[in-house]
């Protein structure tokens, strides 16, 4: 595998050792970073995280150390301080946090402990998406081992510092990956986002100061503390320090997760590491950061996978999930399927998102089935525009941005549907007949209505 030429940081050691076991994790230096951190001033630990330039891996890319520094110090607040780890991973195309939990659960736990110590928290919650049952079991077993060894709970490693970690399973709702919806859900409510401000750093879980970070972000903390922020900052490129566990999927020979330094190109990932496009097909489009990010075309193949380069190409690195799409796919069908997902997952709180995603689906459906009129593409773009930036949380944007990008980048293909009054692919598109959960529900409801 060419990918082994690159040094791994988050998944380090997992190829040669069963790091789900505490003894094996300790053999590769596990929990030494926690020991080291507990002997440091909190501010000194934070300084290493700031020096590392580690940016959040959940989607928004916010600098981790900076967010941690927004949390009031224990002496500045009478409330408990919470650390909440986002393991809700549901952005289509993304499956890296799952692999991190499966293969290096102790690195996640160690990162959680160090981060909690740094912000003066004694309570960690890990919110794991409900479907990840096996991963929950692996993390639970690792946590039990760590607890038995005195690494979690009262008087961690004899330091006098206490820290509990609670695993909380979700129950199937993409929106609960959004940080304030996650907090609502964790408080036992429907997962509907809150308005910000107040930001979670000041008023998060139970209206107390709360730091929220993604699984991969947290699992990167132990190696940073072990070897120093300056060491970590050497990897990657300026403004995009370190490695990422990229999730590669779609029409590619070797789909999977690959931990690579940021700044590597799409070409290297898709062709050299991913083995290229199978069945002798041609690459048509690339989704670079999960299904909510604007699409790139095959011409963008030499773009580097870092925050700035992907941004300059007109998209976002998001969750680091790259989806390769070959020339069999009808882009109108792709747009429809993506819009259906966001319609299904809209929590219903904000009107532009709740109604707008439905409008998007209706218009794209008309385009696909040949019932659209001239002008409907502009109508679709204007619906997208009326969602963008007009909701409490970015779920509406997550639908509007990619859909608008499909129309922008593949306008001729959309237009051909309207001009020809049908899908030019006939039934030959790789996405033909795909049945989404919203369609399945709608069909069942229609049939119930007929029977009644």
């Amino acid at each position, binding site marked *: 595998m060419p990918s082994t030429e690159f040094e791994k940081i988050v998944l380090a050691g997992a190829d040669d050792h069963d790091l789900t076991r505490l003894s094996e994790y300790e053999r590769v230096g596990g929990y030494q970073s926690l020991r080291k951190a507990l002997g440091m001033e909190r501010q000194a630990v934070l300084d290493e995280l700031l020096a590392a330039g580690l940016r959040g891996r959940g989607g928004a890319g916010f600098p981790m150390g900076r967010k941690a520094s927004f949390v009031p110090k224990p002496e500045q607040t009478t409330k*408990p301080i919470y650390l909440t780890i986002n393991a809700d991973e*549901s*952005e*289509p*195309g*993304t*499956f890296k946090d*799952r692999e991190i939990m499966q293969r290096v659960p102790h690195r996640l736990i160690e990162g959680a402990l160090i981060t909690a110590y740094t912000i003066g928290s004694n*309570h960690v919650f890990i919110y794991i*998406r*409900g*479907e*990840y*049952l*096996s991963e929950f079991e692996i993390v639970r077993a690792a946590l039990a081992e760590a607890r038995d060894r005195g690494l979690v709970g009262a008087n961690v490693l004899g330091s006098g510092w206490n820290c509990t970690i*609670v695993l*909380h*399973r*979700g*129950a*199937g*709702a*993409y929106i609960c990956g959004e940080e304030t919806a996650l907090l609502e*859900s964790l*408080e*036992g*409510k*429907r*997962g509907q986002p809150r308005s910000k401000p107040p930001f979670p750093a000041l008023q998060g879980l*139970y209206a107390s100061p709360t730091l929220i970070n993604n699984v991969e972000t947290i699992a990167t903390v132990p190696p940073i503390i072990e070897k120093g922020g300056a060491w970590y900052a050497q990897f990657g490129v300026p403004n995009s320090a370190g490695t990422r566990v990229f*999730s590669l*999927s*779609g*029409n590619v020979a070797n*789909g999977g*997760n690959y931990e690579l330094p940021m700044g590597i190109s799409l070409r290297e990932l898709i062709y050299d590491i991913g083995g290229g496009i199978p069945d002798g097909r041609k690459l048509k489009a690339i*989704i670079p950061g999960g*299904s909510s990010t604007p699409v790139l075309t095959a011409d963008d193949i030499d773009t580097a996978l870092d925050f700035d380069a992907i941004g300059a190409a007109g998209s976002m690195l998001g969750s680091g*999930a790259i*989806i390769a*799409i*070959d020339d069999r*796919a009808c882009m109108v069908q*792709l747009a429809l*399927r993506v819009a259906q*997902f966001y319609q*299904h*997952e809209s*929590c219903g709180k904000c009107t532009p998102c709740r109604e707008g995603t439905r409008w998007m689906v209706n218009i794209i459906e008309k385009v696909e089935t040949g019932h659209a009129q001239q002008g409907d593409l502009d109508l679709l773009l204007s619906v997208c525009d009326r969602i963008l930036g007009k909701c409490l949380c970015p779920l509406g944007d997550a639908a509007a941005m990619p859909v608008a990008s499909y129309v922008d980048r593949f306008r001729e293909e959309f237009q051909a549907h309207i001009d020809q009054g049908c899908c030019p692919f006939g039934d030959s598109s*790789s*996405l*033909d007949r*795909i*049945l*989404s*959960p919203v369609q*399945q*529900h709608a*069909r*069942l409801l229609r049939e119930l209505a007929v029977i009644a």
Partner: protein
Amino acid sequence: MTALYDEIQQVAAQYPQRRSAVIPALRLAQEAHGGWLPPAAFREVADALELTPAYCQSVASFYDMFQLEPVGKHMIEVCTNISCALVGAQATLEAFESELGIRAGETTPDGEFTLRTIECLGGCGWGTVVSCDHRYRHYVKPEDASRVVEELRHAEH
């Protein structure tokens, strides 16, 4: 008090505020009621957490993994999100439909299987991903459907 009541109390004790235990409690109640949440389940959860049944129902209805109608003994969920769709999820789904003689969203008349489509399960690089009784299978092809169904039919539940 019932076993469910006691289990819910144990879970609730982990949280600074007991209401946080609603989702875990609903999951326990669903397991105790054969995979779905009848009205009695909401009363039990409400009673254990000092909430109202209506509140518990409103929470449950938000989340995809809570079933508000009876389901089959086995649950087969086929991901039809884009990465799986690009590598043939639709053909895989249709193979399960014909193997079971039902369509997505339905339960077999003998109550053995519920088949449904599901949004991205987080296994996109190894599609088509199918979750069978909440355990993932990867690279599921249409020709695997009959074997998967047979395995589940004979699995201990």
